């Protein structure tokens, strides 16, 4: 199967649906259909990437090495399946609740196309193009709802992230200058021979770019405003799918290309990760609305990914992948239930909260277990203690907000939300629990992806 199909389906559908009024139900449901097809193709692609032969294609029929290569490797397809599934659940939620902007379904499909391309491409500059494509869709989605504060939040979101994108572009230009190529594999092979004083600057620029995207501690300031003001479906998309750009970028560029620099900067990464975890958790404890708590929790959770990456090695990188996957499912679930009421909702929220805190039998437990494994591998009691402390703090803030939201009269009175909305929350909650009972596929896939990533980075 040609790899490009998974990119073409959402892209063509988006271009087509952009011409129709997205507030009409049939447009929304067509978008849902197109995205479902994309998810199905991504799953087929994933089966191929983990199975017999990873598929790749060179765009435009150019010979390999000249044209831009799209290749479905295990790390990429994992993130493709994850992001498209999160986007699908958020889109179904919004279509079931009623779309209020004419461009919304098309934007979600553009976002899906951008993210898919970003996870597929094997070319550094092409990565930047898809990066911008998905971010522009995300900027436009962030103001969905048209309230004054959403517009301001969207503006800040766009400005800060654009600054990050331009830093990334400068990093790409520098990579081209020192290695003379844009192909990821060739860059990885040649960069080891380059003077470290140059490559460290490149690594810093790229790290800052993805740090902004992921909302790590010193670059997080845009995140709470945006996540709290965005509508629930959009917040779920931003934290469950768009933030994956940050995790994937750090993995691909850190562990896959700039390996020496990653090793050199490991202490810094672990320090920034620690700060993120503590800052996010302490801020989350002091907040009282669920959207705010979740926004600060997102900052803290990103810190775990960074710590796992700093530990490095097959175990650390596999832990980073598992954690990134689990975290984005958790956040999608939790943001979607923030504004719905009724039967099933409290249970879904509790499962999400358990998962964030890392309590069995939820997916989050295995995320934490993998981190503990990585910490023990590193022989660091401090790290294990930190992960435990972070988990304990997240337990406190998640249940504080659970209590505030579901034990007070506010959430128990008033009309129940429509059944489809609650059903989506329930499905996501079931996924979180199912992954907790049967985590083997995800653990195996992450290890496989980490092995391929590490093998690819060795010249």
């Amino acid at each position, binding site marked *: 199967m040609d790899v490009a199909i998974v990119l073409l389906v959402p892209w063509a559908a988006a271009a087509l649906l952009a011409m129709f009024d997205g507030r009409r139900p049939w447009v929304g449901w067509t978008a849902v259909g197109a995205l479902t097809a994309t998810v199905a193709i991504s799953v087929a692609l994933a089966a191929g990437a983990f199975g017999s032969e990873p598929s790749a294609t060179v765009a435009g029929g150019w010979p390999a090495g000249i044209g831009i290569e799209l290749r479905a490797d295990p790390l990429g397809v994992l993130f493709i399946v994850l992001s498209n599934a999160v986007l699908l659940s958020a889109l179904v939620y919004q279509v079931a609740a009623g779309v209020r902007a004419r461009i919304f379904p098309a934007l979600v499909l553009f976002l899906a196309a951008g993210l898919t391309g970003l996870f597929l491409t094997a070319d550094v500059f092409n990565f930047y193009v898809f990066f911008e494509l998905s971010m522009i869709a995300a900027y436009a989605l962030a103001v969905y709802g*048209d309230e004054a*504060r959403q*517009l301001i939040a969207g503006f800040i979101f*766009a*400005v800060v992230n*654009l600054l990050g994108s331009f830093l990334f*572009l400068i990093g790409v230009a520098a990579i*081209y200058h020192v290695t003379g190529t844009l192909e990821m594999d060739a860059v990885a092979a040649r960069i080891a021979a380059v003077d470290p004083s140059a490559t460290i600057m490149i690594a810093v620029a790229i790290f800052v770019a993805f740090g902004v995207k992921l909302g790590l501690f010193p670059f997080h300031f845009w995140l709470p405003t945006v996540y709290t003001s965005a509508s629930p479906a959009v917040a779920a998309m931003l934290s469950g799918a768009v933030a994956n750009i940050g995790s994937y970028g750090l993995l691909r560029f850190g562990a896959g290309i700039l390996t020496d620099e990653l090793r050199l900067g490991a202490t810094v990464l672990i320090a920034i990760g620690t700060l993120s975890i503590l800052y996010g958790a302490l801020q989350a404890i002091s907040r009282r*609305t669920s959207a705010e708590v979740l926004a600060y929790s997102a900052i803290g959770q990103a810190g775990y990914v960074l710590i796992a990456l700093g530990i490095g090695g097959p175990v650390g990188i596999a832990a980073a992948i598992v954690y990134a996957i689990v975290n984005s499912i958790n956040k999608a679930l939790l943001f979607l239930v923030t504004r719905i009421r009724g039967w099933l909702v409290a249970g879904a929220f509790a499962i999400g909260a358990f998962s964030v805190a890392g309590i069995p039998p939820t997916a989050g437990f295995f995320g934490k277990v993998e981190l503990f494994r990585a910490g023990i591998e590193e022989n660091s009691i401090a790290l294990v203690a930190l992960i435990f402390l972070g988990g304990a703090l997240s337990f406190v803030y998640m249940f504080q907000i659970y209590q505030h939201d579901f034990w007070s009269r506010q959430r128990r009175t008033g009309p129940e939300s429509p059944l489809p909305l609650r059903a989506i929350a329930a499905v996501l909650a079931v996924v979180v629990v199912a992954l907790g009972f049967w985590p083997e596929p995800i653990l195996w896939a992450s290890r496989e992806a980490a092995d391929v990533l590490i093998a690819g980075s060795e010249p």
Partner: protein
Amino acid sequence: MTLLLAATIGILFGTGAFLLMKPDLFRIVVGIVLVSNAANLTVMANGLSRGQSPILPIERGVTISDPLVQAMTITAVVIGFGVTALLLSLAYRIYVSSRTVDLDELSHAEARHEAELEREDVSV
């Protein structure tokens, strides 16, 4: 040439970053445009090479300048153009809904909104 380009990029980026810190939405947009152009110029500067223009037919044995950076820059310019349009339309929408482009005034309004939320929260 390298020094001249480095100085230009530095000034562009510095001016852009300075404008980004202003509390005025349109100055921020101009700041982003300048930073984006600094990045575009960096891409060009990174592939600076002397030679014949890379247009067919190319004579054998002569060096040609690197066409790839030009291709990258034109792509980045187009992206920058789209982004600027989006930012300007956002700024205009903010102006239409809030009647101001001053970030300080806008954040005061935001603070009032939060204070209201806080009061509602206490009353429940």
